[in-house]
């Protein structure tokens, strides 16, 4: 391995690329070569370091751990000369704020603990040696040379690790069940079909630290006695697929995959299988069907995959995050892991915060933090000084929680008891300008389209629920429709075959529970209190208008008229309620009325 004095990690996140990250990498290479430093400083391209909206194109220099942000190509010659030639940190280019994730980069948010995300943005995902340098594959070596499969299962059991895919079934218990089935060969699958809108924690791990998932899978395979594994990755994540394939190839070269791993008689190999855009494939029996090359339709359980899975053989399926945490548990001990979290939910969990908060992005916190701490301390509160209205947890099959739930601890039991669920960890925060009926309709539209069509309650039920919600949003609903909705939701939840149908009505049920008055406003008063539902609102230009004509130019249907420097008028009949005028107006003079 070639040694470098310094390593420069440059973010080539798509947004940084758009802001000139590629030119910055080129400039760095040119400048370093000019000073004869090309052999001393290594440039590595990595995924996002900080939020590009705040940090612009950025890079981090190791071992000094200096984060330079908002760089332009013109800054590079000075930066290279000062930092790499003269060894002086250039304070004026340093990031002014600290990052949300990446505890190594400046002060972390006090409440974060990074286990799964520990290497993200820090190591080159294309180089196995960097992973090994961070204690990578050490847990595997310990396991294969000094532990029996039962001891591995015991240790993971003691750590309290629960499946991170959503249901929260104890991981070691699942392994044990699969191990006990007297049928061979056994298979291992990794669910990397992260389909929930608003969730992207698995993508980050797969792209930035694929080896941690691979190592976790090899350990699990040893514990179960599996000989072959599949990582089922969704087709929407091409970089994850590419990085996984590179990582698997390197692990094979190092003898960490294949025959006789670490010179023991344990053999295991891995393959990446790509999905093709079907949300239901995140359900484990559908995922297995898809790996087998069939339509990704779920089937009734039992038999559970632990008994009959891929090719009808015993199969253990876990989520990306579950596998990624396994090496750390074996390296640092079950007690260390179990010391974090709540009584029944141990360890840490990654969450993707999105929606109307100041700091969107990934976080990793111990279970048990309150929703309030996550939204207001880690997430920085609601954007633009607006008011918190609701938070959707658990993805499209989860539920929404409101103000009164803010002090609930984030763990599996508390969320389920409140009528939502943990799911894979997407948190979508909504401010008071969000219409909850419209949100329910949106989630229903998603699940209705993603319903695979195999069982009738889900195929027809989700469609009917959506029809009713659309009727209500269009101002044509009646009070009877609300009763009908509740009845339908109940039936679909009870009678559907898999988790998709069973969970699909959740957003409707939870919004009906907490925001019934909004539904009533839609059907009785024919008003949308949040001013979102198009059929129930209209736009009007107020006297604050300066006649700048920006709205008229941007209107897609030319519904706005008016002379220059004169107040403009919207023709209500032509207006399609797209809201672009309100977005582009620099004087906040477009009012929405309901």
């Amino acid at each position, binding site marked *: 391995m070639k040694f470098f004095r310094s390593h420069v990690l440059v973010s080539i996140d798509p947004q940084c690329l758009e802001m000139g990250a590629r030119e910055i990498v080129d400039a760095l290479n040119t400048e370093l070569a000019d000073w004869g430093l090309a052999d001393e400083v290594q440039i590595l391209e990595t995924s996002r370091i900080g939020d590009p909206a705040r940090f612009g194109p950025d890079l981090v220099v190791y071992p000094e751990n200096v984060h330079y942000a908002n760089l332009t190509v013109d800054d590079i010659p000075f930066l290279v000369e000062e930092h790499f030639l003269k060894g002086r940190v250039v304070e004026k280019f340093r990031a002014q704020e600290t990052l949300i994730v990446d505890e190594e980069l400046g002060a972390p948010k006090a409440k974060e603990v990074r286990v799964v995300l520990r290497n993200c943005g820090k190591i080159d995902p294309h180089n196995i040696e960097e992973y090994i340098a961070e204690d990578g594959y050490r847990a595997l070596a310990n396991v294969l040379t000094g532990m029996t499969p039962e001891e591995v299962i015991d240790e993971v059991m003691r750590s309290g690790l629960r499946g991170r895919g959503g249901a929260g079934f104890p991981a070691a218990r699942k392994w044990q069940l699969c191990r006990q089935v007297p049928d061979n060969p056994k298979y291992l699958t990794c669910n990397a079909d992260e389909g929930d809108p608003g969730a992207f924690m698995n993508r980050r791990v797969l792209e930035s630290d694929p080896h941690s998932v691979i190592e976790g899978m090899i350990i699990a395979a040893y514990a179960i006695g599996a000989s072959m594994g599949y990582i089922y990755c969704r087709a*929407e994540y091409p970089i994850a697929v590419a990085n996984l394939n590179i990582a698997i190839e390197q692990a094979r070269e190092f003898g960490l995959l294949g025959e006789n791993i670490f010179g023991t008689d344990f053999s295991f190999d891995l393959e990446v299988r790509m999905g093709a855009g079907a949300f239901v494939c995140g359900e484990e029996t559908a995922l297995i069907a898809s790996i*087998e090359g069939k339509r990704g339709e779920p089937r009734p359980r039992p038999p559970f995959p632990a008994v009959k899975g891929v090719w009808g053989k015993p199969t253990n399926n876990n989520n990306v995050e579950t596998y990624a945490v396994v090496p750390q548990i074996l390296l640092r001990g079950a007690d260390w892991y179990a010391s974090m979290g709540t009584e029944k939910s141990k360890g840490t969990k990654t969450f993707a915060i999105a929606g109307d908060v100041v700091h969107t992005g990934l976080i990793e916190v111990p279970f048990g933090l309150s929703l309030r701490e996550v939204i207001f301390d880690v997430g920085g509160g609601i954007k633009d000084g607006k008011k918190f209205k609701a938070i959707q947890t658990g993805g499209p099959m989860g539920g929404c929680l409101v103000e009164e739930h803010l002090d609930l601890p984030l763990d599996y039991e508390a969320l389920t008891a409140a009528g939502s669920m943990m799911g894979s960890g997407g948190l979508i925060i909504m401010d008071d300008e969000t219409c909850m009926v419209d949100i329910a309709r*949106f989630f229903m539209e998603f699940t209705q389209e993603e319903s695979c069509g195999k069982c009738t309650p889900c195929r027809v039920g989700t469609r009917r629920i959506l029809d009713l919600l659309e009727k209500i949003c269009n101002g044509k609903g009646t009070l009877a429709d609300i009763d009908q909705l509740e009845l339908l939701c109940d039936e679909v939840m009870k009678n559907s075959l898999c988790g998709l149908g069973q969970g699909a009505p959740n957003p409707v049920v939870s919004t009906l529970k907490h925001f019934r008055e909004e539904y009533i406003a839609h059907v009785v008063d024919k008003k949308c209190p949040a001013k979102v539902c198009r059929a129930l609102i209209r736009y009007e230009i107020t006297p604050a208008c300066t006649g700048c004509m920006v709205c008229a130019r*941007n209107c897609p249907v030319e519904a706005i008229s008016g002379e220059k420097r004169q107040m403009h008028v919207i023709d209500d009949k032509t207006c399609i309620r797209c809201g672009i005028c309100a*977005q582009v107006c620099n004087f906040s003079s477009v009012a929405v009325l309901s």
Partner: protein
Amino acid sequence: MAEAVVATPEIYENKQVLLDEIIATHRSRPGAMMVILNEIQKRVGYVSEPMQRYVAGKLRVPVSAVHGVVTFYSFFTTQPRGKHTLKFCMGTACYVGGVPQLMEKAKQLTGTDIGRTTPDGQLTMEVCRCVGACSQAPVVTVDEEVVGKIKPNKFQQLIKKLLEK
């Protein structure tokens, strides 16, 4: 790194040669059908009905089995696509963040509905599921690249660029 993931549909005079090559490479793998169809979609750009029949014949499975898989997954298309593909992310954050308005704008600028290809074969527009870039909402993807935080005026330039031959 980027080269490895860009899926440029290769244009072959004789697609059969390419199909034969793809099928021969992957047919021995268990569960080969998805792998083969994914590869065809990536390299040819679509999986037409004649191609489905051809694959079925080669794999000795009923055409219905291949057709069933192709129509089940949203990534497979049965028709050739435009030179560029513009996908509108309909994840929650993007939906809330204004993608529906961008779609209206796109329809107006191209005169083509979402889900269609412009008559000159230049641009295909579609909606897609969450691409996992929620913090940058509203997001569209241009071919394989994610473009986030789109403002209406920036978007107009983007469409114009895509329509240029």
